[in-house]
């Protein structure tokens, strides 16, 4: 790469510019500066600002007052449990469903149609999915109507404005996300490894259990983390499809309410920080357990 650096004549020994270029700093490197400044200004600075602000309570009191209020008010601290109670089951279910489907789809020649259909809910976004599910899962919607026609239920199931409405919306937007991530990990593994196992007489379950699973475990851990973080930050569907004052009062609702309805930016930032730390905690725990699994090349090496 260094050969590309603008070559200046070496008359007076290496200049500062040349020494910098030798370390990889030259005009080209500077191109990264605008984007870095933008990220620093609009991402790192607000985070730091919010972190500091969360220790300066609006109502006065000492620096921990916001956090003490959060953890002593059941209406606030219960949001963590409520959000986890939504996010963890949904993420596990999504991953559990995505793995067998990804293993089936990897054998398909024409994956594009399927992946295109699955990309739909991600592209349309949670607001539209919430609006659609309000109609579709409602007491007069097609879902309940079909179940009643088949005689599976006699009364329409209550599926919206409660836990299950949010659960369904997280499934519809979360499953494609989890699936496409899983698929990219599954197809990243050299099929020669599986063929070798099959040649040695391993059946499908043994091939999955002893060849794929150890190789895929790190990928699954990352997929779990990304899907979990998405589900944990559920917001529009918890408001529109759930009961935002009751069972699905998730932590993002509490944060948005504190900041933009009570205009207590300090409390809002405190809740956002708590939300970030819970996410970080789960992600770190999952990624730390990744060290327990095999890490190494996932391609069939020659020799």
């Amino acid at each position, binding site marked *: *790469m260094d*050969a*590309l650096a603008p070559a200046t004549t070496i008359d007076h020994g290496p200049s500062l510019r040349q020494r910098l270029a030798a370390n990889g*700093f*030259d005009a*080209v*490197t500077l191109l*990264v500066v605008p*984007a*870095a400044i*933008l*990220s620093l200004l*609009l*991402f790192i600075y607000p*985070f730091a*600002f919010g*972190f500091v*602000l969360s220790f300066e309570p609006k109502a006065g009191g000492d620096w921990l007052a916001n956090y003490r209020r959060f953890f002593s008010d059941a209406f606030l601290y219960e949001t963590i449990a409520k959000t986890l109670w939504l996010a963890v089951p949904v993420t596990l279910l999504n991953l559990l*469903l995505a793995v067998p489907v990804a293993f*089936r789809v*990897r054998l398909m020649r024409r994956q*594009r149609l399927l*992946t295109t259909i*699955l*990309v*739909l809910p*991600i592209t*349309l*976004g949670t*607001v539209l999915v919430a*609006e*659609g599910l*309000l*109609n*579709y899962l409602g007491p007069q919607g*097609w879902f309940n*109507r079909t179940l009643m026609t088949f005689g599976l239920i006699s009364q329409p199931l209550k599926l919206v404005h409660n836990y299950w409405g949010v659960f369904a919306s997280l499934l*519809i937007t979360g499953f494609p996300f989890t699936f496409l991530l899983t698929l*990219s*990990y599954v*197809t*990243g593994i050299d*099929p020669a490894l599986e063929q070798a196992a*099959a040649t040695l007489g391993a*059946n*499908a379950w043994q091939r999955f259990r002893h060849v794929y699973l150890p190789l895929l475990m790190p990928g699954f851990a990352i997929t779990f983390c990304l899907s979990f973080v*998405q589900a*944990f*930050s559920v*917001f529009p569907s918890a408001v*529109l499809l759930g009961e935002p004052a009751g069972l699905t009062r998730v932590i*993002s609702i509490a*944060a948005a309410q504190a*900041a*933009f309805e009570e205009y207590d*930016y300090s409390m809002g930032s405190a809740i*956002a920080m708590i*939300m*970030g730390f819970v*996410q970080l905690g789960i992600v770190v725990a999952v990624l730390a357990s990744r060290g327990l699994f095999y890490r190494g090349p996932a391609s069939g090496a020659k020799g």
Partner: protein
Amino acid sequence: MIRDTTLGSKLWAAAVWVLVGFFILNLLAMIATVVTSSFATRWLGTWLPVGFTTRWYTSAWSEFQLWDVLIVTFQVVGAVVLISGALGVTAAYALARRDFPGKKLLVLLFLLPLLIPPITFGIPLATVLYQTGLAGTFWGVVAANLVPTVPFVILVMIPFIEQIDPKIEAAARVFGANTFKLFVHVLLPLLLPGILAALLLVLVRTIAMFELTFLVAGPTSQTLVVSLYYAVFAAGVRSVQSIDAMAVIYMVTTLVWLIIALRFVNPTQIVTRAKQQPAH
């Protein structure tokens, strides 16, 4: 390819396909419900509405001031696409071509906004924007949307740039091209497919980006998805069909761009940028 012919594996395969079919059926039925409802005259307690009409579209158009909302949406999206393209591609070039101390830290800085959900960093970001007076304005919405899109462009573009042989650039340098000329005459034409793909994905993502826009938008800087949220939130004030008509307009706006984008990108790129190996 390995073919399993036992009964168990056939049943398993069938079960997996039933699962996929069930998911897709529900997804399409959900979308069909919205579309049907938007054309319905009266739809209560029956499989299909009593009659069909298009009047909800005209009423939604005027009730929700969709013309203004659409103009704002495309202005925001256009600004986000142009700025994130300019900043993202140049930064990606530097990251793809140079190794320098602190590069890993910088990559982490660009990865974080993509990994952390918008609502988590959106609240402190909106707080800062409110304090500087930018929130509620057009540029506030653009600034908030740039946070995830610039890193997105960078991460999509890095592999594209790495594919281009540095010798081509070296040749241009030999002939006396400076960095700007190199960009315009050599790199830009070679990178155009990649840039197009990245920017189309940014476009689709920005139209659908709810959280950040919701947190910083004011009454005059709402995009379509935020207006839709407020309409659904205040359901009961307007008729369901009117909201559904707006939802269909939103869907069409998004899907048109998705279809265009899919001509240039693999659908999986919308979620991941992991390279897929060709099946052996």
